[in-house]
Structures are given as C-alpha cells and as structure tokens.
C-alpha cells in the first residue's frame, strides 16, 4: 500500500469513526432530552424549550394589533362539539354566578350574573376556532371583552402575569398570560351564531380567545382569578404546551 492509500485509509477511518460517534451522540443526546419523563408525558427538557418558545413568541411576535382574521357571515361552518371536561354536573343557569378574584385576592371580590356581564359593551367577531388537533371551525361569537371586564371590575389586575379560569366544579381549568387575555378579540362569550350558548358549548359564559388553541377557550366559566404564578392548566398538566399561542 502506498502512502496516499495509507493516508486515505487513515482519513476514511477517522471520518467513519466521527460519523459513528455522532450517531452515538445523537442517540445519547436524545435519551438525555427524554430523561425524567413523568406522568405528564413530557420530559423537563421539552417543557423548558416550550417555555423558551413562549418567551420568543410573546416578546417578538405577539401584539394587540395582530388580529385573528375575520370572516364573512357566509363562511360560518357547522360547529363541532369537542371536550366535555368540567361540564358533567347539571347547571342551574339561574343560580350561576361568575366569581372574580383580582390580583392578590384570596376570596372572590364579587360575583356576577350574566345580565351584569352583558351590560358591558357587546363585541362580535367571526373568527376560526383552531383546535390543537389541527382542525378549525369558523363561528360568529358575541360577548364582552375580557379587557373591558377587567378594567371595570378588577382595575390593576392587568399587571398580574396570568389569568386562571376554571369551571364551577374546577374539573377543567386554563392558565393564560395576561397580554393574551387582554387581547381585543378575547371575549367572555355568551352567544354563538346569534343564539345563546348551549350547554355543550359552555352556557352561560365561555372564553373565546382566537390567539390561543381551542383548549384555552374554556366553556362554562365559574371563576376568573388573576395571579402572578402560573395557574393550573388541564392540558398543560397532560403534556401540552402551556402557552398555546397562535
């Protein structure tokens, strides 16, 4: 074997060893990323990256002036019913009250009837509800801006980092960053396609938040609480992204 072939063999060996080491590194790195996978089905490394993505999205992309596209009445589609967590108990609409806990409050500062909420300026929009599963449905929503509600009844709470919203039985809950909650299209919604909400769709009051996936559009709101720590979130506890921002 001449020297050039020796050199070729040496360099080939080195190149293939590097490739092999790289393959081992990828497999090792992958199991390292997946370490500590708990009951929530999401390893801490992946959670950290989702949270880092949230920081990028909320600081670089998010803006109150970025609105979800609006559609024409002719684009409204047939609604799907998806998700009944927190809707299992019979609900007496006459007895229903919305409980509000402003920032720092341990107990509800006030309870509201639907009529009191409807007294705020009515806002309508025809937008698509995007399910985290990948489908979307265009609907006409009517309600009051969560930001209007907050400014009137929980002034100062906008400074909190999060809003936690739960069903009356607390079986379903969502945590939302305050900027998204205060987005002008985020509604405390009481009407869908011109009709009062049905029980399936969250009567008497649900959240419509087009800057988030459907999972955050909680039905049958029982309490709204402003907090500086992340409130519990049903799907985030099951391995989904906490932010879910669109």
């Amino acid at each position, binding site marked *: 074997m001449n020297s*050039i072939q020796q050199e070729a063999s040496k*360099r080939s060996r080195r190149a*293939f060893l590097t490739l092999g080491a*790289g393959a081992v590194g990828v497999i090792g790195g992958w199991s390292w990323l997946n370490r500590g996978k708990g009951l929530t089905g999401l390893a801490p*490394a992946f959670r950290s990256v*989702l949270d880092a993505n949230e920081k990028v999205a909320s600081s670089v992309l998010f*803006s109150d002036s970025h609105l979800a596209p609006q559609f024409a009445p002719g684009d409204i589609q047939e609604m799907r019913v998806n998700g009944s967590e927190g809707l299992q108990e019979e609900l007496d609409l006459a007895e229903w009250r919305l409980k509000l806990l402003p920032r720092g409050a341990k107990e509800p500062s006030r309870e509201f009837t639907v009529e009191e909420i409807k007294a705020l300026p009515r806002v309508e929009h025809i937008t698509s509800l995007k399910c985290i599963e990948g489908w979307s449905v265009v609907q006409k929503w009517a309600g009051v801006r969560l930001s209007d509600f907050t400014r009137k009844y929980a002034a100062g709470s906008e400074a909190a980092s999060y809003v936690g919203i739960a069903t009356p039985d607390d079986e379903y809950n969502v945590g939302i960053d305050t900027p998204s909650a205060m987005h002008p299209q985020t509604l405390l919604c009481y009407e869908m396609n011109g009709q009062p909400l049905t029980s399936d769709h969250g009567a008497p009051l649900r959240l419509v938040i087009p800057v988030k996936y459907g999972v955050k559009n909680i039905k049958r709101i029982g309490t709204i609480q402003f907090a500086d720590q992340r409130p519990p979130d049903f799907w985030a506890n*099951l391995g*989904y992204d906490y932010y879910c*921002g669109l």
Partner: protein
Amino acid sequence: MASLFGGHTPTVGESEAISKNDCIGNKMAVLRPWSSIRKELIMTLPTKHPLAIRWAHWVNFPILTLMIWSGLLIYWANDVYRVGVGSVTAFHFFPDWFYKLTTLNNRLSEGMAIHFLVMWLFAVNGILYVAYTLISGEWRLLFPDRNSPKDALAVVLYDLKLRKELPPQEKYNAAQRIAYTSILLMGAGSLITGFAIYKPTQVAWLTGLLGGYDMARWEHFWLTMGYVAFFAVHIAQVAKAGWNNFQSMVTGFDQPAREAAGE
C-alpha cells in the same frame, strides 16, 4: 499518480518552520515536512464534498427524521388528507394498520413538543448550509442552469436505459442540480408553511398569502410527503452509484485507485 508523491526534498529551513508551527507529534512530519505532504494530498485526494456540506448533510439526517416522525404524531390527531377524486379515495393518509404498526397514535402532545424543539435545529442547519454554499461558491455546482431542464431529462432517460450517453456535467448532473435545489426550496417551504400554521394570528399576513390556515397545513403535509419521495429516490440512486460514491459523503474524497504492482 506516483510522480505526485515522488521526489520533493525539503530544505532544512522549511522542515524546521513546519515542526515549530504545525503538526507537533505527527510522525509523518518527522520524516518529511507536512506542507509538502499536504500539498500532495490535496492533489491526490481532492475534496469532493467539503466538510461543511458533509456535516450539514449528516446532521440533517436525524433532524429531518425527528421532524417527520413528530409531524406524523401531530398529523394523526386530524388525519384528513387523501389521494382521491370526489368520494372515491385511492389512498387515505394513513390507514389504521399504519398507525398500529408505527405506534404513532395518541401522541399529539409528545409530537408537538418534539416538533417545536427540533424545528430550531432544522432551521439553523439549513441556514448554515445555504450560507456555506453561497459564501464558498459551491452553489454554482448545485444550482440549475439554463440547460438543466433539458439535460435532466437526458439523465432520466439514461437511467431508464432509453438513452446511451449522459450529457456533459460538472460535479452534479442536471437532474441532481434540480433535485438538490428543489429539496432546499422544500426545506424553506416547510419552515414558511410551518411558521404560518404555528402562529396563524401573529403572522396572519403570511398564512393569508399561503391560502389560509387549512391550505398552509395541507402544503406543509405535502412538502413532507415530498421529502419521503426524495428520500426513496435518493437511497435508490446512492445504492446504484455504489460504495465509493457513498463513502465520499462521509470522507469527503474518492478513494484513490489501488496500483496493481508492488502494493
């Protein structure tokens, strides 16, 4: 070939300079100055694939595998695409047996977590690759030119044994130029359509340009199917081209021909 590593006798000064500045501990440098050896090696083991391109290629392999895999975990949750006309479906993506075989059902959250981590690596690797090909001038060998469409047809006909001669080519033939540039554009397309369905409100203008949210998801899916098709053809062509071609994507050079006598 032999003349290339024959009689260069280094001067004393050259040897000393080398041993001070270069290659300490390299046995060959003790015998001969590294500069002369390296000069010969460059002439005799010419670089076919630059190091940067080999890294980008092999780094992309696990990245793209993970992106496709996690993409399928996500797609499962709303698996609406098919090949068909009207109510007649020729193939549904995907049949139940496929999900059972691959166990990629009921893993949406996992798929999203993987997809939204590896997407960064995919983007960075792609950008580095493009930057390298632009800066090094390698793009001239990869980008199709005026004759490429015609020549690519000739290459395909040749591969199908319908034509006897290949058109003249440089490092890559016309079909390769088109394929390797297309796959790059597809990568950019995946990033763009992916961004449009990842943040359809914040970049609503982009999602709108792509035909809306549902259309962007459809495009994102079919680009992925395009990768799978590319991969199948790529593997077949690499297998057909043989070991020396394959190993050059690892080592960077074609193996030198063995000389018959005295080796």
